[in-house]
C-alpha cells in the first residue's frame, strides 16, 4: 500500500529552491521547478551521497551545426539538474535520471499538491 504523507507547505519552497527532509523513514529532497514539485530520495545511486544537497544547473548539451562544428548550448533555460556533491553525477530532477546514463537513477516519488499542502506518495511501509 502506498502512503500519502504530508511533507511541507508549498510556500516553504520558493521557485528554483529545494528543501530536504525526513519522511516515512526516508531522506528526501523536494524541488520546486517551473512546472511543479518533484521529490527525490536524498541518496545517490553511485556511492550513496546526499544528492539532494547538490547545486542546481542547467543541462549543458551540444549539437553538430551545419558547418560541422560543435555548438554547446543549454538544453532548457531552467536549472533543473542537480549535481551530486560527492563526484558530480548529474541528475534530471523531473525524472531522477542520470544525464550520463539514464539507466542510473535517483529514486523519485510523486508529489501531490493540495492547496497549500504538499504530499509525497511513498511505497507502503
Amino acid at each position, binding site marked *: 500500500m502506498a502512503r500519502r504523507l504530508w511533507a511541507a507547505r508549498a510556500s516553504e519552497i520558493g521557485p528554483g529552491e529545494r528543501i530536504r527532509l525526513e519522511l516515512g523513514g526516508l531522506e528526501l529532497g523536494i524541488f520546486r521547478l517551473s512546472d511543479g514539485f518533484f521529490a527525490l530520495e536524498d541518496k545517490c545511486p553511485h556511492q550513496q551521497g546526499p544528492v539532494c*544537497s547538490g*547545486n542546481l544547473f542547467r543541462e549543458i548539451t551540444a549539437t553538430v551545426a551545419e558547418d560541422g562544428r560543435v555548438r554547446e548550448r543549454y538544453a532548457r533555460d531552467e536549472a533543473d539538474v542537480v549535481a551530486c*556533491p560527492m563526484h558530480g553525477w548529474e541528475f534530471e530532477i523531473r525524472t531522477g535520471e542520470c544525464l550520463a546514463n539514464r539507466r542510473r537513477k535517483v529514486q523519485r516519488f510523486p508529489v501531490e499538491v493540495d492547496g497549500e499542502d504538499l504530499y509525497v506518495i511513498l511505497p507502503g511501509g
Partner: protein
Amino acid sequence: MGYRGMHVVDADAHYLEEIRDFAKYLKGPSVERFADWSGQYHMPALVGEQYDVMLHGRTVRGAAGGKGDQDEMLGMSSPADIPVVMKRFGIDTIVMIPTYMLMVEFVRNANHAMDICNGYIDYMLDGVCAPEEGIYTLVVAAGRDPVRAAKMIDRVAGSPAVCGVEMLGSVELPLGAEAYNPIYEAAQHHGLPIVLHANFLGPDLSSFAKFPSFVESHALDMTWCNQVQLVSMVMEGVPERFPDLKIVFQESGITWVAGLMYRLDTEYMRRRVEAPLLRKLPSEYIKDFYFGTQPMEDMPRKHLKMFFEMLDAENTFIYASDWPHFDYDEPSAVADLPFLSDAGRRKIMGENALGVFRFTEKTVNLEVSA
C-alpha cells in the same frame, strides 16, 4: 572505528600542504625562493588551465549544499581535519599523500627539488602526522637526485610516522633504471614500500595529445603514467634486484593492469633476450605488486569480478579513498562488493596494507577497532 567491523586502512588521502608554513622548514637558498615567489604556489599547479577541479560547482566539499572552495577539493588543509575525515569514513589508519608535492618532478633544478622534499617531510613530521592516532605519511623522493634522496630516507626513516617512500610517475627516466638504486636500497633497508602515485604524465602533458578537457586528460594520464612505470620496473628487473622491496601503484583504478600483464607476457615470450634478469613471467611479478583500488571503475559487477580474479585482488588490492578529490571512493564502494569473501574483504580494506606499509602503531589500532 572501522567499517563493518573491519580495520580500515586508507592508503591515499590528500593533505594540502600550506606552502607558507611548509616554507619554514626549508633550508638554504630555497627559503628565499619560496619567500619571494610571485605566485601562490612553488610549482606548477596540476595540469594546465583546461579545467575546474570542482567541476564548475558540481562537486562540493565542506558544508552540505554550500560552495566549498578550490582548496577543499585538493586536500585536508589542517591537521585538525584529518581525524574528522577518519571518523566520517571509519578509517583506523590513514596515509596522508601530499598535493603540490605531486608536482615536484617538474622542478628541474635537482638541488631545489631535494630541498623541497626535505622541507616537506620535516613539515609533515612536525605537527601533521600522529602515528599514535593512525596518521602516517610517505617521504617523497625526487628522482632527480637519487643519492640525496636516499640520504633523506635514511635521515627520516627512524620516524614512526613515515610508512613508505613515494615516487612519482613524472620522473624523467622511467623507474626501472639503475640510477634509482640508492632510493630502492634505502627503502628496502628500512622496510618501507615504494609507492607510485599516478599523476598527470600522460599524452596530455608529455606528448602529442593536448586534450581540451579534463575528462580526457584524467582518463588517460593517470593510468598511462603508472603503465609506463610498471613496464619499466618489471622488465628492468626491479623485483629481482630488490627482492624484499614492496611496490604499490595508486590512483589509476584497477582495470589497466590486467591487459598490460598479458601483453607483457606475450612480448617477453618473444623477446626474453632483452629482459634477461627476469626469472618468471612479467605477470607473475605484477601479482607481487600492490594496487590502490581507487578510482574503482564503474562497470558491470560480473566483469569487475573477473578483474579481481585476474589480479588476485584479495592479496594485492589495497583500499584507497583519495579523499577529497572529485573521484574519491567511499569504503563501501569496495567493501560492499558482493563477490568478495569475508576474508578477502578484510584483506583489501586493511590487512593487505598493514602488511605492506610500515605502520608502527598498527597493533594498537587493531585492538581499538576489534
